[in-house]
Every structure is written in structure tokens, then in C-alpha cells.
């Protein structure tokens, strides 16, 4: 098999809790290709967020190997953009200054990236909001600013940890479409797109966004299923009402619960 951008080889993670060692992840092996949009779905506490942080090099795995772009991950890796559940914008900085933060943290001259930051804000529909403080924006707008911040240094890999989890259902659906647009679903060639690893609780969200959904089981987190989502791109709102979309949802639901659904005629 061809090597992917991200290669996980028997990754395991055990941490020490007060009651003794807890196995959070066990035997995770997967290969994610460049330009793929992959969602990690699983119940709370299945270690999907931990796995994301292990890929970023922010937490060490206790067994197995992680390779990103051909290099073993042993410490935090640059060239990634991270988006978390909360926007975590700095309250005292304007939106534009927040988007420029990665440049400053990485020791780059923020002035040289100013026009890129402004372009990103424009693209995310925040054109007139660069000078505002975060608290002047709605939750969805703040999260879009956080996405711009993650994209500032043009990382090839985007790691997203339940980025829309704190938003209301309607904003959430809008944000999914928005993300696909910014990702370049329509106008960027498949292999030139960013690789996205997207953690979510929501099955429909995972199906709607992804090329592939990895389903995880809980305690210890293992890969229960790895499904390809062969729905046409660009994805549209109407897609949500199709039978194919519903079937994939059900399939993932079954993989998640590990049993067939009683009383569902489909």
C-alpha cells in the first residue's frame, strides 16, 4: 500500500489515572492520503481527541509509530493548523491580530502576512470585521476567525477537534458548507487540497463533509469501521435528503453501536 500523508501503525495510549492505568487507545492503524478529508467519529471518551493530539505531536503515544509526511512524530510538528471546539481567540486582540498570532508564535514577521490574513477573513465572510474584538462577534463568526488563524501559514494538514460542537444546529450546517468551500471542494484540484482530520460526535456532519469516516469504539478506543463516503462533490444541502446519505448514516450508526438497528425499515 502506498504511504499516506499520515501513517498510524499500531498506535496505543495508556495513561495513569488515580485508580490505575487506563487504556485510552489500542492498536490504531490507518493511513490517510494527502488531500483526503477524514472524520473520526465515536462516543465520548473513545480517545478521538487524544488521537488527534497524538498526530499533532502534542501528546506522546505509549506504543506504535506515527509518521506525518514521512517523518516520525516525536514532538509537536509544525505545518499543521489546529481548530478546537472553542474558538480560543485572545480577548484583547482584534480579529485580524488573532488571525496573525501563529506568525508571531512561529517567529515570522506578521506584517508580511497581513494581506494574506485579510484575504482569509474576506474568504470566510469576515471582511469588515478585522478590527473588531472577538466578543463583538457571534460564536459562528468567532469559529470562522479561528479557522482563518489555522490557515494563516498555509499548512498542508488541518486538524479539527469538534470545531462546530458548540454551535447551534443551523449555524453548524452553514459552517459545514463554508468549510468545504474554503477547503476548495469546487475550485482546488483534489490532490492540492489540504488534508483534514476532523473529529466529531455527529454522524450526519461526518458523512456530509468527508471522503472517509473512521468509526471508533470506546475504552479502549479502537477502529471499529473505516468507511469510504462516495458521495458526489461539491456537496449540497439537498444531499442530506437523499437515500444514499441516509444509508451511510445508518451504516455508521450500526458500526458505532455494534449492532443492527431494530425496527428500522430501510
Amino acid at each position, binding site marked *: 500500500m502506498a504511504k499516506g500523508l499520515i501513517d498510524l501503525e499500531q498506535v496505543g495510549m495508556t495513561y495513569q489515572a488515580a485508580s490505575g492505568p487506563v487504556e485510552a487507545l489500542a492498536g490504531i492503524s490507518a493511513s490517510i492520503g494527502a488531500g483526503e478529508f477524514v472524520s473520526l467519529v465515536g462516543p465520548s471518551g473513545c480517545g478521538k481527541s487524544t488521537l488527534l493530539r497524538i498526530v499533532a505531536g502534542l501528546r506522546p503515544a505509549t506504543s506504535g509509530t506515527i509518521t506525518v509526511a514521512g517523518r516520525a512524530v516525536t514532538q*509537536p510538528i509544525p505545518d499543521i493548523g489546529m481548530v478546537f471546539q472553542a474558538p*480560543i481567540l*485572545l480577548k484583547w486582540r482584534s480579529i485580524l491580530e488573532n488571525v496573525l*498570532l501563529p506568525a508571531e*508564535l512561529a517567529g515570522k514577521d506578521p506584517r508580511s502576512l497581513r494581506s494574506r490574513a485579510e484575504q482569509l477573513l474576506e474568504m470566510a465572510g469576515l471582511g469588515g470585521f478585522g478590527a473588531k474584538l472577538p466578543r463583538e462577534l457571534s460564536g459562528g463568526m468567532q469559529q470562522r476567525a479561528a479557522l482563518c488563524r489555522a490557515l494563516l501559514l498555509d499548512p498542508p494538514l488541518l486538524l479539527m477537534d469538534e470545531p462546530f460542537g458548540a454551535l447551534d444546529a443551523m449555524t453548524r450546517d452553514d459552517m459545514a458548507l463554508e468549510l468545504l468551500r474554503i477547503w476548495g471542494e469546487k475550485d482546488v484540484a483534489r490532490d492540492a487540497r489540504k488534508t483534514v482530520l476532523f473529529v466529531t460526535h455527529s454522524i450526519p456532519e461526518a458523512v456530509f463533509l468527508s471522503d472517509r469516516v473512521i468509526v471508533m469504539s470506546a475504552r479502549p478506543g479502537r477502529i471499529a469501521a473505516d468507511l469510504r463516503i462516495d458521495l458526489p462533490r461539491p456537496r449540497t444541502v439537498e444531499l442530506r435528503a437523499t437515500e444514499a446519505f441516509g444509508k451511510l448514516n445508518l451504516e455508521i450508526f450500526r458500526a458505532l453501536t455494534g449492532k443492527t438497528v431494530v425496527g428500522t425499515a430501510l
Partner: protein
Amino acid sequence: MTKLGAMANRYWPTFALFAFLLASWQAAVTFGNIREYLLPAPLSVWNALWHGDTAWWPHLWTTTFEIIGAFLMAAVVGVALGVAIAWSPILANALVPFLVFVNTLPKVAIAPLFLIWMGYGIFPNMLMGALIGFFPVVINTAVGLSQVEPDMLDLGRVFNAPKWKIFVKIRIPNALPYILSALKITATAAVVGAIVGEFVASQRGLGYVIVTTQSSMNTSVAFAALVWISVVGLLLYGAVVLLAHLWAPWAEGVD
């Protein structure tokens, strides 16, 4: 006009209550036949402020100087200790129990020792104010520096940002509202400390004036000194509030 109108709308109950209390006080003293040395009427206090025998200026200046000195000492030392605690766990383990111990000591009880060690003067009174007021600054600085979302720190690690940069760009601005909030307490404590210091040992200052009225039974002068003390205290407090408004406008309404 609208802004002035809004302010009048908001603060008229404050002034109304204040005026009512003053008027009742004056009426009680005038018609209730209360002796002047027990409770002077507001008008006598007013006279003591402006037309009495007390030359207020040197006393006012001395106490103000002590209070500002105490405030600045508490602020600088408090922030420095808070930074040290947040920066290094070893320093935190060394300092925190010691500081908690110092804080539990009744500082007022140490004031007589200050007289033995340092004699009369402005400095021991400043030190007393600083000693009473520094602790909240230490705690709030340390807390404000550490209360940063773990995800934000992860962001710093992803970009391999050095520790000092995280401190300067994220932790310190984050701590600013906490520090300013503590400085409001310190502003009040500095006043208490300076006056207590003057009670124990001084030859000048508003606290000294109050002590001397004890023997002369000149109560209206003591009240006048109280007025001056509260004016200085209010001005310092107002300055801190203004500073918070200018330096940390994003945290408005937090406390």
C-alpha cells in the same frame, strides 16, 4: 447633554441619599442637643476643613505620599512574586507557603516592631501599607498568568513558541484584568496601612492628626481628617478603575 443626563439619571439616588444623611446628621446635632466633642455637626467639620487652626497641607501631603508609596511597592513586589510563582514550580513551592504564613500574620501587630527597627518616618508607614496590600496582587497575578486555556498553550507548542513569548503575548495580557482587580483592593489596603503606621509612630500625617485630637477632644478636626483620608482613598481607587478602563477594556464588567 445626553451623557450628562444619563449620568444624572444614574447617580441622583447616590447624591440624594448622601444629602439626606448629611441633613439628618446636621439636624440631629442642632436640635438633639448633642455635644460637639461627641459628634460634631457637618458644618463644624466643614469649618475645621477650611477655617480651623490645623494646617492640613503637610499632613495631607505626608499621608498621600505614604499611600502612593505603599500602593506602588505592593503592586511591584506583588506582580514580581506572582510572576515568579507562575514561572517556576520550584519558586512556587518555596514562596507560596511562606507568603500564606506572612499573610495570616496580623500586620497591625507588627507595626510597633517597625517603630523599633526603623524609627519614626515615612518609610515604615509605607511598608505597613505595602505589607497589608501586596498579597491579593501576588495571588491574582499568579492565577491570571495560569488561567490560560490548555488549547491555547497547545497552539503555542505547535508553533514551537518559546516560553517567554507565550508569557509576553498570552499569559501577561491574560493576567492584566486579574492584576487590576487586585490593585483595587490594594488601593484600599494602602490607606489602612499608612494610617495604622501613623497611629503607632509619626509626627505628621492625617493619622497623626486623629491621634492628637484624642487628647484635645477636638472631634471636628478628627472628622475633617477622615474626610481628607477618604478623598485620597477615593482618588487612588478611581485612578485604578481608570487604569483598568484604559489597559484592559476587553475585561469590562468582569468584576
